[in-house]
């Protein structure tokens, strides 16, 4: 188990190096001239030349990459071209906001998806199963943007229970409760597609597991149904569910920008969107790198958890511990 974990962590390094090269190349591949972004489109050629030399853009690419990577490893993502302040100052607080929203959405999705999946599997074929499965399908098929607007219309504008936009009140806001009230609607809206997917995966895996021979044997031995479900079926059904759950968290982190826009949630997605529109490449680089890192770490956690749950994975990929 320890060897497996260390091996997995070591594998992360080349993945991140690859990501860093791609992220670095964004600047090279992006259309248009970097200096015209910085100096404005009406800058003189001479001024652009001076700036290129100042920024080291006239040096060979590997040299530029080395310098950039060395700085990034020290937490220096450069200065935002648009906001003229360190990129790290902009993206880290925003990443925390996004992680809070995505994490809450994932949590809701896990609870909702997992419980509905287990119940419907246990009652497979009944009316209850059909209603819940259909309901999850409908909820999961609602476009995020529209779903968010409907929630705002009902809970913020019609019943006035919850705020419509932002993460805290603009006037006199702050505090955990204030954030929590602002968190509910966007988190619920963002969770629905993930909840539907997890529900479907859980139901399918559970049904498959419940049809295995060892379950039939357990049933034949007269073990109570609830114990079979919990002790025998659930644990064996977990690995694919954990995998999907991890992937969904990763997707939520990167793909929650629509919800951030609808609710004006001050997250990283919104920053990346604006940075791309404004061609603020250091910010795009920093944000993509931090999201990639989060994605890789989530996958690492999923692998380790699955290895813990299923010795076969360990045996296949890293040797069995003795």
């Amino acid at each position, binding site marked *: 188990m320890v060897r497996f974990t260390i091996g997995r962590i070591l594998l992360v390094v080349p993945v991140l190096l690859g990501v860093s090269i791609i992220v670095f190349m964004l600047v090279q591949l992006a*259309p*248009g*001239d970097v200096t*015209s*972004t*910085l100096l*404005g*489109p*009406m*800058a*003189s050629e001479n*001024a652009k030349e*001076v700036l290129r030399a100042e920024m080291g853009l006239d040096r060979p690419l590997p040299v530029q990459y080395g310098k950039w990577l060395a700085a990034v490893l020290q937490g220096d993502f450069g200065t*935002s071209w*648009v*906001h*003229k*302040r360190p990129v790290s100052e*902009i993206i880290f607080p*925003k990443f925390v906001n996004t992680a809070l929203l995505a994490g809450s959405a994932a*949590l*809701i999705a896990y*609870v909702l998806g997992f*419980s509905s999946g*287990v*119940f419907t599997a246990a009652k497979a074929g009944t009316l209850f199963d059909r209603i819940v499965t259909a309901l999850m399908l409908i909820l999961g098929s609602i476009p995020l943007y529209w779903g968010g*607007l409907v929630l*705002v*219309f009902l*809970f*913020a*504008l019609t019943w*006035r229970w*919850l*705020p*419509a*936009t*932002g993460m805290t*009140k*603009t*006037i*006199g806001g702050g505090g955990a*409760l204030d954030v*929590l*009230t602002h968190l*509910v609607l966007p988190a619920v809206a963002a969770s629905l597609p993930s909840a539907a997917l997890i529900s479907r995966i859980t139901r399918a895996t559970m049904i498959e597991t419940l049809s295995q021979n060892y379950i039939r044997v357990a049933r034949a031995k007269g073990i109570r149904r*609830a114990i079979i*479900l*919990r002790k025998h079926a659930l644990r064996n059904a977990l690995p694919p569910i954990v995998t999907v759950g991890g992937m969904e968290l990763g997707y939520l982190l990167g793909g929650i920008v629509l919800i951030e*826009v*609808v*609710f*004006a949630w*001050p997250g990283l997605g*919104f*920053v990346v969107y*604006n940075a791309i*529109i*404004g*061609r603020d490449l250091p910010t795009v680089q920093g944000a993509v790198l931090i999201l990639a890192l989060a994605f890789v770490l989530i996958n690492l956690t999923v692998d380790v958890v699955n290895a813990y749950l299923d010795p076969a994975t360990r045996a296949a990929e890293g040797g069995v511990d003795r």
Partner: protein
Amino acid sequence: MLRSLLRPVIATAAVAGFAGAVFVSDSARAESTFVYGMPADHSVLDPHVTCGWMAKMVNYQIYEGLVEIDLHSADWPTKLKGQLAESWEISDDGTEYTFHLRQGVRFHDGTPFNADAVKFNFDRFLDKDAPQFSETAYAYMDFIRMIGDIKSVDVIDDFTVKITLNGPNYEFLRTGMEDCPQMYIISPTAIETHGNEGIPLNPIGTGPFKFVERDPTVSTTLVRNDDYWGENAKVDRLIFRILEDPATRVNALLAGEVHAIQDPPWDEIESIVEEGFVLTTNENAPTIWYLSFNMRHPLMQDPRLRQAINYAINKEGIAEQILHGYGKPAHGMLNAGTYAYDPDFVSYTYDPDKARELLEEAGFGDGLDLDFDVMIYGTGELTEKWIQRDLKKVGINLNLNKMEWLAYLDKWVPGMAEDVHMNEMVWGEQTPRWTAFGYRCDRVPPHGNNIGWYCNEDMDKLFQQALETADEAERAELYQEADSWIMLNDPANAPIYHYFNPIALHPSVTGFTNAPSNWWDFSRVELTE
């Protein structure tokens, strides 16, 4: 089993219910804070290196220029008023502007405002050897024609500054001092302490509001300047919230989370007003949405083709159907905000038959293909598609080359290349001289925004004559004469519409003036319960 699995669900539901019950609505405002919902993030708070209207909106509250447009009045035409200059004189030959500065004014950091501060700011882009010289400021000021106008800036005494121009120029105040980028005066101490790159995070001026903080892509917070030399602002704090999505902007207004929103979606304005919110517009906002023709393209040489395009576009339809009446057809390049705008001037009204006739005459009876550069700016290109459809009806097949905004700007600024017949832009300046920059032979890129390469020496003489005419009414006539001649005989553009700048206000807001401008004054805004 069931119970143990249900527990987290119940817990989550309980938390949500609790939160809902405890949430207090936003109506209780202890401190008076005005929150303005902006449709886009603003650029840097350094007034010499930005041109965007959103940045101007924030900068206008923080900084002041020597002379400004009076934004406390919604009337058109707009009036100039002294701001940091109490008065000014123009020499008889129109080349020397002497400003008598306001005394006892201090920047937000305590630095006294005087003639040296003015000179220091001008040297930021005029004097390449000055330590505060900024290459970016130079680039912006050069494009906006400021640098070509000015010969020297001299300090006469502590509170007198003389600006000498290269030639007679009676539009200098509106071109140089009250335009884009505005010649606002920044605290010299701030520039010395924080450097040119540090100004966006340390914007220090003399205006009625002081900068507190900026949360990029979220909000910018200002606080009242209690030591302001003039009438103090009414509200304690002014917060600009960035709400890019139109539906979100409306939701924030309806939920009482902002007090005003700019550019509510046109088809929702009616229902917002029915909810009790107040709509303000200005039919003389200085905006113009227009097409430019590539005069260097052999195909575009024939004026009849350009006249036909003007006849073929149903501008009234665009104003009614797309803008829902929050804009009006444009007939010339003088926007509705300049004093030289003539509301009665009509160049082309919708007449597809006339357009077909002209095309036939010009030898395009079998139809033709044209390439049209289009910017993607979040409006769904409705107007462009409308134009495409109108031109199709007269036999012109329009290819829309859509580009993201910055890529578009990179292609627009250097002037139209061989591969394109026409492009588009939205602009709007207070000075009618802006039309000269779009028409004059010596204002082709890189010396200005004559990006369609129009050139007519007779018209250039008229524009020069206008610039050298001291009387404003006479000047207006000259600008009108040039614009109407070009529009009717040799159109270099197809002006489409002037926009009314709709802003929806919470009923508690008083004292807001929707002046003929693209940014507004918030110092007189008050909140009543």
